[in-house]
């Protein structure tokens, strides 16, 4: 039998075998990669010898034949090298998927999803990113291989990473960010290291695009899987943000030399080297507020309404990072004073008479608009409502309304979620995961504003439906990795809100593993 044909048949057989996920990916990856090398390796060496011999003998026909054989067996032995250096950069998505199916070592544990990640990376590199190709990759992700025995988990970290990259290819950056950040929350056995490395690097790239170097520093330093690129990015971000520990110039240069894509990352190195090596004090890292738009002379002459407006303008002008509760309370007090003043009442009556309109309605609209502006700024700046809770008047009304709105929104979202789970309306596994992430994000946003009191209330609402989803995924749908990650999150929350019963239940669930 021709060695190349033999190698091809052998690799295809093993690629089919690789769809069976085991709980010991390292062992299976090593075993498969070793078997490939054991059988195909000697053939490849033999063909290399033949090629060398043909070159020495100047045998043109022999040279061509040996070259053809080498080029056929090389992808079997070095699938990821070829995919990474040739197929992904040139956007050959289908070929990248095919060759990566033989990458038993690099994607050990989940070769099937690793191949979809390779295809997604190739799609991202294309200038056009056709929707048919994205749909094809999604179909490959969702395809289930015929199996003799049911598997314990079908979707792991690599499936989530592949979905995140495909969301990015579709232009849905928010979903991509959410999915890619969640991949490493699954137990380590359910994700290939390379998948999480790709996820962390993509998250850094996206943060760099936004100029959010603090996020780059956070992602690169806390990634569960390190890489030379992530090390370089962590150091560059630390230098640019001034967050200690700051690397010295020599370390930066060394990390840059060792990292891939040196030519592309040279501007990053230059920017980092141009930044001083001394850490910035916390105050300096804060955004400084803008100078007031109105001078104190103007404010002295302005009446209560003018003063409230001037402070309101300052509140809207300031960068969100520079806003603080004290400023908001000051604006609220100024408005309380202005709205209760006789001058405003008189002004409204006079103008309403001239214009032929109603002064009471105008006052009501003005109050609504002021409250809406204040609520929008609190939400955008993520100012904790607890810090504003002691106020009276307008700010108190805004805080009370926001608190109620947050709880209502969470209740509506949870009810819809619960109704679907109770009715057993099944979504694809990755969509189930996304629905959990969306609910969790809404919960996180709400507690960031409303504080620990709402956290306890929200947990009692969320625990039941989310636990039902996790149990469903774990027991009936062969999605134990996803179910286990959800149990883990519920356990963490139960510990934070100190719910003894939920802690006991979730400890038991988490201990079931995958």
């Amino acid at each position, binding site marked *: 039998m021709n060695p190349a044909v033999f190698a091809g048949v052998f690799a295809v057989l093993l690629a089919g075998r690789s769809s069976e996920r085991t709980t010991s990916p390292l062992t299976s990856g090593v075993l498969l990669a070793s078997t490939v090398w054991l059988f195909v390796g000697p053939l490849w060496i033999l063909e290399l010898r033949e090629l060398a011999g043909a070159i020495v003998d100047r045998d043109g026909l022999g040279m061509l034949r040996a070259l053809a054989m080498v080029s056929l067996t090389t992808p079997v032995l070095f699938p990821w090298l070829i995919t990474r250096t040739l197929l992904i950069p040139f956007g050959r998505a289908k070929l990248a998927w095919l060759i990566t199916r033989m990458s038993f070592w690099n994607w050990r544990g989940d070769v099937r999803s690793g191949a979809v990640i390779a295809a997604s990376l190739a799609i991202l*590199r294309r200038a056009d990113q056709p929707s048919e190709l994205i749909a094809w990759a999604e179909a490959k992700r969702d395809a289930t291989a015929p199996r003799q025995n049911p598997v314990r988990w079908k979707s792991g970290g690599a499936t989530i990473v592949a979905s995140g990259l495909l969301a990015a290819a579709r232009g849905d950056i928010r979903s991509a960010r959410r999915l890619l950040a969640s991949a490493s929350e699954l137990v380590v056995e359910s994700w290939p290291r390379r998948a999480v490395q790709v996820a962390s690097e993509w998250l850094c790239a996206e943060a760099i695009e936004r100029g959010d170097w603090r996020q780059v520093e956070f992602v690169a330093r806390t990634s569960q899987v390190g890489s030379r690129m992530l090390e370089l990015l962590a150091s560059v971000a630390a230098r640019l943000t001034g967050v200690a520990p700051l690397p010295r110039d020599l370390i930066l240069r060394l990390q840059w030399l060792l990292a891939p894509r040196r030519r592309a*990352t040279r501007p990053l190195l230059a920017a980092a080297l141009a930044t001083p090596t001394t850490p910035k004090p916390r105050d300096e890292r804060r955004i400084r507020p803008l100078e007031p738009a109105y001078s104190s002379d103007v404010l002295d002459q302005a009446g209560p309404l003018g003063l409230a407006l001037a402070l309101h303008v300052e509140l809207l002008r300031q960068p969100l990072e520079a806003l603080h509760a004290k400023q908001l309370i000051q604006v609220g007090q100024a408005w309380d004073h202005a709205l209760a003043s006789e001058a405003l009442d008189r002004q*409204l009556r006079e103008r309403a008479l001239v214009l032929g309109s109603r002064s009471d309605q105008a006052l009501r609209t003005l109050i609504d608009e002021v409250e809406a502006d204040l609520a929008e700024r609190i939400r955008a700046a993520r100012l904790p409502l607890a810090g504003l809770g002691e106020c009276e008047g307008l700010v108190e009304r805004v805080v009370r309304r926001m608190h109620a709105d947050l709880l209502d929104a969470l209740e509506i979202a949870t009810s819809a979620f619960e109704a679907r789970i109770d009715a057993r309306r099944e979504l694809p596994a990755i969509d189930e995961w996304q629905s959990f992430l969306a609910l969790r994000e809404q919960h996180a946003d709400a507690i960031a504003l409303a504080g620990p009191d709402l956290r306890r209330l929200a947990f009692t609402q969320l625990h039941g439906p989310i636990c039902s989803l996790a149990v469903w995924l774990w027991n009936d749908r062969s999605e134990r990795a996803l179910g286990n990650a959800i149990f883990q999150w519920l356990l963490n929350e139960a510990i934070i809100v100190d719910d003894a019963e939920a802690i006991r239940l979730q400890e038991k669930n988490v201990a079931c593993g995958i």
Partner: protein
Amino acid sequence: MSRIAANPFFVLGLRPDCGRADVEREGQKLLAMLEVGLSPARTYPSPLGVHERSAERVREAMAELRDPERRLIHELWATLPPPTATSTNAASEHAPASGDAPISAGPFEGFTLLGFRRATRSSDR
């Protein structure tokens, strides 16, 4: 924010005590200036900075001020004129101050740097 930035009085460059005829006259004048592309008509100041003025925005402002109920609210929001002497402090719509981090590096094309997107030649941009 648009209550102040897009307040009809600021869009038309008028004060709240102006008459109805002033609104129509100033609106038509601005529309004519915008039609021929005169640069003074292209922007207007508000307490929140300098903003772009378009014919559509001018027409909307005129319509808002024809409604007495809406006009009364706009008058209240326009009580304070745009800052004059300290106008350099005001944020501009073209160079927003909000969210600017004190990091001078960049901007960088993160996806291209890290190989998630193919680099485009400068002539393609």
